[in-house]
């Protein structure tokens, strides 16, 4: 079998470089416009209508946010200008929107916590990073402890305790989302395993939990956490007002995570399970070393889109009196000192941009991951 072929190669060794398409076929801008914008009379009409619409919307946006906006000055300049956004308002409220009422001298702790979180998340999500399992361990186990110590404070470590009433703004939004993902992913994996278990009672419990939670709105779960959790436990155990929505968000998103993970478990070929069992590997070892690493990898896009949903849902915690980022914007925009014609719109525009950048960035990551996975499966 091995050894050199006796025949000379049938195919020439150096491949010819690909030729450019003939100039007649290469589309000129005019051809492109005719083909893509004016292929039929109806298409032409649509093109004109939609161009006008898009141009008008873009013009409205740019003139409000940039051209007519107030860039420097204070309340007076904003009140005098009913046309454009009032950016000095955002500049003045910027710290409040980020930290809420967290004491100014201690804000470095928030920054540090978020920086550590950002590094860990980047490490986890960067596809070529070394030792991502260490990152996972740090993120899901060590980070919550560090974050708790840093944010809330421990008197003996010379970090004054900051009451959660003072927490607010983007800090709360990010905290809610990170707590949500840190707790909901492991819980979701457990629920998904339970739902695929061969034990009927375990399966029934998991199915009921997942379907009930997915069948009700997040607001009702928040209401339950807020009003009923204090009734469930003795008075001395009553959870902190910030802890209640955190528990709610972790439980709520774990049901959605479970469904995502289940899809991944179902996508793993049966042979993998059977091979593991044939080797005498126990259930938990099989899951830990063989099934879950494969299943979780293929559902990363699903996990990210669930996370985007979770991130958007954190806005609802305002209903139980938690001052998240959107609530901070709401509070800031009704500040009588800044009463002006465009303050509300400016606030919403800014909030929209912030949320959009986060969500769009994550969805882009998820799409690139999806493409990478599709490539991996084809080869």
């Amino acid at each position: 079998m091995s050894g050199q072929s006796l025949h000379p190669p049938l195919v020439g060794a150096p491949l010819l470089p690909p030729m450019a398409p003939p100039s007649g076929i290469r589309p000129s801008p005019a051809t492109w416009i005719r083909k893509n914008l004016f292929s039929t009379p109806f298409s032409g009409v649509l093109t004109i209508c939609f161009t006008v619409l898009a141009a008008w919307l873009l013009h409205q946006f740019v003139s409000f946010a940039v051209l007519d906006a107030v860039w420097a000055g204070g309340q007076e300049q904003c009140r005098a200008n009913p046309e454009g956004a009032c950016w000095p308002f955002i500049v003045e409220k910027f710290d409040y929107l980020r930290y809420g009422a967290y004491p100014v001298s201690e804000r470095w702790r928030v920054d540090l916590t978020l920086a550590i979180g950002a590094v860990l998340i980047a490490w986890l999500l960067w596809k070529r990073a070394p030792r991502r399992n260490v990152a996972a361990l740090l993120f899901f186990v060590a980070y919550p402890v560090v974050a708790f110590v840093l944010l809330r404070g421990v008197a003996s470590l010379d970090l004054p305790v900051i009451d959660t009433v003072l927490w607010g703004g983007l800090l709360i939004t990010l905290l809610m989302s990170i707590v949500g993902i840190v707790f909901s992913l492991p819980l979701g994996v457990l629920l998904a395993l339970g739902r695929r278990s061969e034990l009927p009672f375990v399966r029934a419990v998991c199915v009921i939990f997942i379907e009930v939670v997915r069948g009700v709105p997040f607001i009702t779960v928040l209401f339950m956490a807020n009003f009923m959790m204090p009734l469930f436990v003795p008075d001395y155990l009553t959870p902190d007002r910030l802890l209640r929505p955190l528990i709610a968000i972790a439980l709520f998103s774990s049901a959605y995570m479970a469904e995502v993970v289940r899809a991944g478990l179902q996508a793993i070929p049966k042979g993998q399970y059977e091979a593991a069992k044939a080797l005498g590997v126990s259930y938990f070892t099989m899951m830990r070393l063989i099934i879950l690493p494969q299943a979780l990898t293929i559902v990363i896009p699903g996990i990210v889109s669930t996370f985007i949903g979770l991130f958007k849902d954190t806005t609802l915690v305002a209903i139980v009196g938690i001052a998240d980022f959107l609530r901070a914007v709401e509070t800031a925009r009704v500040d009588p000192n800044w009463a002006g014609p465009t303050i509300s719109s400016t606030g919403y525009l800014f909030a929209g941009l912030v949320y959009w950048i986060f969500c769009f960035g994550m969805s882009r990551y998820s799409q690139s991951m999806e493409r990478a996975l599709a490539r991996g499966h084809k080869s």
Partner: protein
Amino acid sequence: MSDVLLAAPSRRSLSLHDAKVRGIIYQLLLAASLLALAVGIAVQTASNMRARGIPLSFGFWNEAAGFDINQTLIPYDTLSTYGQAFWVGVVNTLYVSLLGIVLATILGFVVGIARLSPNWIVSKVAASYVEIIRNIPLLLQLLFWYNAVLKALPAPRASIELPGGIYLNNRGLIIPEIQLYAGAGTVGLAFLAASIFCVAFWFYARRAQNRTGKQLPGLWVSLAALIGLPLAVFLLVGSPVSFVTPELKGFNYRGGHQLYPEFAALLIGLSVYTASFIAEIVRSGIQAVPKGQTEAAHALGLAPGKTLRLVIVPQALRIIIPPLTSQYLNLTKNSSLAVFIGYPDLVQVFAGTVLNQTGAAVQVMAITLSVYLAISLVMSMAMNAFNQRFAIVER
């Protein structure tokens, strides 16, 4: 060797090495701990509620509620009971959800099909719509529509006057009230008769097409019957309808129907937001239909519109329907965000006001959750039936 393989265990010893035994033990442990948790919570809750003087029964159901609700579809006033307030909430939730589902479906299909348009700018505008809307939280969009758009309209005294006696101001959209006189019932009967005629004609047209191969102009005949007959009767009995134009009295308008800004903001927000998700579902559903189907339809001489309507969409619907259902459910669940802008839906009226007034958190939450679960259950059952009806029939 074969003896060893074939020897089945003649008697089952209860051993921890037996997977079945271990399974039973695990399940018993789980059941015991869940039971302990449930009993613990129940006992603690009961004693906590008693200590705080919160009623443990559903007795509040028939007590007078004593608060008013500004938008009701069923009779309600301050003397009504908490039970009636609950039904107002349920009906309002269903009302806004159903309207939202209709609007979101229309908008979503339009945007989804526009995304696949060969026209570059149309597809780009549709794609931008999807990417912008679905990456901004729904609550932010609702607050924007409510506070920055609808509440920023002029006060009633400076209302924007639209043609036909319609006024737009920050209290909502006020349209003339329709008053019916004797004879209006005949118009309704005429409409009913026209509808029956349309159905009959549709059956006749189909049979005619099967027999002769000729298509009858079903759409035009139906439209003519549905509009023409009631209109003719309407004129015959002498226009039994008058419009009461709203008039500005004091600080607000009297007479006329009012479309409240809370309702409008919720409806717009829910429809626009959900439409962006529906558009993606429609796009991927249509793209999942093999290209050969389009090419075959074109080769048979079907025009692009008919290709889409008769060949592509029916096949794409099979793929579209299941995720579409879950979007409908999401919309219904998201209608609970009404509580942020004050539209009296189930959560705002019942889990909000009633819970605060009675303090009966456990009962109120249990009822609220059951309503949403029932809606989910009914919708998924309906969709399962639909899926079975339209599933591909294989040998």
